[in-house]
């Protein structure tokens, strides 16, 4: 169990992430602005955790490992997220994790993200975080319920 938790933490920090701050909010494909996450943050960290969707918005079953492409993460000073908001990061929905013997790569759902990896956050010690799931056909979910993020 502890090992599993450690793995999830690693995924939260090291999953394929495209940080979008400063690139005008476009997708990671635009302008080659993708960045690799820097060193793991020191000091207290805030881990955003979530449950991947398992249905489409019409209640048809969805396989998150197969049908999801990535998540968009949003940060605001208030909880009023809108479709006009630009994501500050894209997090792959599935990550490859080496097996213990290093010979194979297992596909694991990404369900955590370290918020301190986000660059250029809005000012303020109280922020709000939300996210959307994006399917492999680029269809986007509604926003997840906003979460208060106390940075003080």
């Amino acid at each position, binding site marked *: 169990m502890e090992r599993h938790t450690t793995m999830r933490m690693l995924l939260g920090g090291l999953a394929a992430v495209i940080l979008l701050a400063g690139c005008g909010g476009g997708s990671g494909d635009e302008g080659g602005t993708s960045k690799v996450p820097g060193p793991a943050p020191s000091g207290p960290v805030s*881990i955003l955790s979530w449950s991947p969707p398992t249905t489409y918005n019409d209640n048809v079953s969805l396989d998150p490992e197969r049908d999801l492409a990535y998540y968009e993460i949003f940060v605001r000073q208030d909880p009023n997220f809108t479709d006009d908001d630009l994501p500050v990061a894209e997090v792959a929905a599935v990550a490859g994790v080496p097996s213990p013997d290093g010979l194979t790569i297992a596909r694991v759902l990404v369900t955590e993200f370290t918020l301190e990896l986000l660059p250029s956050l809005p000012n303020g010690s109280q922020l709000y*975080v939300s996210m959307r799931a994006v399917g492999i056909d680029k269809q986007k*979910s509604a926003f997840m319920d906003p979460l208060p993020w106390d940075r003080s």
Partner: protein
Amino acid sequence: MEKIAKHLLWIGILAALAIPAFAETRTISWSAVTTYTDGTPIEAGKTVSYSVYWTTDPGLASLHSIGTSIAETSTPFDPDVLGMIRGGTVYFTVKTVLSANEISALSPGYAWVVPPAPPTTRAPSAPKGGIIIRKK
């Protein structure tokens, strides 16, 4: 069997009438049959209905039913429900049945290439159970 209803004049596939969330419904339609093969009109008291089939055989063997006793001159169908292979060619044929159980020959086959499946427009549901955990 004094008279046999003539075969249908033509069969045509119309555009999709509706594409609901779970299926792709299309409609096949055909012209109404009003005469016997000798050209005489079908009597007013007789009811005309149609049986519609599809097959992958251009010779119209191994027919699969789409519907029988159809009073209208069109019927909806779902290519996937019927087991049609996307991208493959299928052939439709119709025969006319009169209330007196007089049955026509099959109409000439109408070839149709089953179009590729439409792209999904379903969005995932939103992630749930979000929580922010502060760790030192």
